[in-house]
């Protein structure tokens, strides 16, 4: 329990995995833009876009930032403040009626 040595011991996605993730991110972006232009989907635009962005967010954080494979400590350091930020944002959106028409 002395010298830092953790990165050598964790599962490492290969370069192929990274390229695959990047490709998926590109596809999701294209889908987002497509959905944006499709009038038929206007009523459900917001939930779909939020879900797609959340997916991209999770993939970048999980794979590129390696959070999926790393120590849970890093997850706690990130998720804690993220949850607080989202909660404060939601409270402010409610106070200002950002979601209402």
């Amino acid at each position, binding site marked *: 329990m002395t010298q830092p040595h*953790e990165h050598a011991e964790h599962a490492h996605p290969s370069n192929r995995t*990274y390229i695959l993730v990047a490709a998926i991110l590109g596809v999701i972006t294209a889908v987002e*833009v497509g959905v944006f232009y499709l009038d038929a989907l206007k009523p459900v*635009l917001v939930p779909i876009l939020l879900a797609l962005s959340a997916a991209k967010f999770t993939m970048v954080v999980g794979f*590129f930032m390696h959070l999926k494979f790393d120590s849970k*400590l890093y997850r706690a350091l990130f998720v804690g*403040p993220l949850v607080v930020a989202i909660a404060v944002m939601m409270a402010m959106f409610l106070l200002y009626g950002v979601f209402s028409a």
Partner: protein
Amino acid sequence: MSQTDAAAMEMHSATGLPNRKILMWAFIGSECMLFGSLIIVYMVYRGKSLVGPYPADLLNIPFITVTTFVLLMSSLMMVLALSAVQRGDMKWGKIWLFMTALLGMVFLGGQVYEFSHFVHEGLTLKTNLFGGSFFLLTGTHGAHVAVGVIWLMSLVFMAQRGRLTQANAETVEIAGLYWHFVDVVWIVLFTLIYLLV
């Protein structure tokens, strides 16, 4: 040389994890609140400008989709760079690091182009609430990208002079965490600003 000294001073690690990586994740947590607050300002003022130009008049989705894609690909370059450095392949490490910075610069170029176009169309920081909140939010993000580009180019120069080696993989990893976070923020901003009009 500074690595071994730092390692000697690394003292004792209660978690077995490196100090600087814990620092960067804690910093990223703080940045969540920073961008969260800026997003609050943007969203609260959305639709509240009394005079134009308004978002619908100016936002160019196709253009920004391209720059968004560029930034996403820069994150791919970054993980490839880290992977190379961790393997000890400094030649490709340098190339991928440079590519990351280059794509970052392309993104910034796109931002500069978009901003000047908006200004030309009559939208500045002080025109209306949209101008103020838009430029502040995306400008702050852009400033973060610029700092990242400088950081990455510094690493490229160090590698060029042989001062960046496999032993410095942690340094590259930490720069990578910062870079990916900046990308992740853009993912959110792209959706909120451009798609949820």
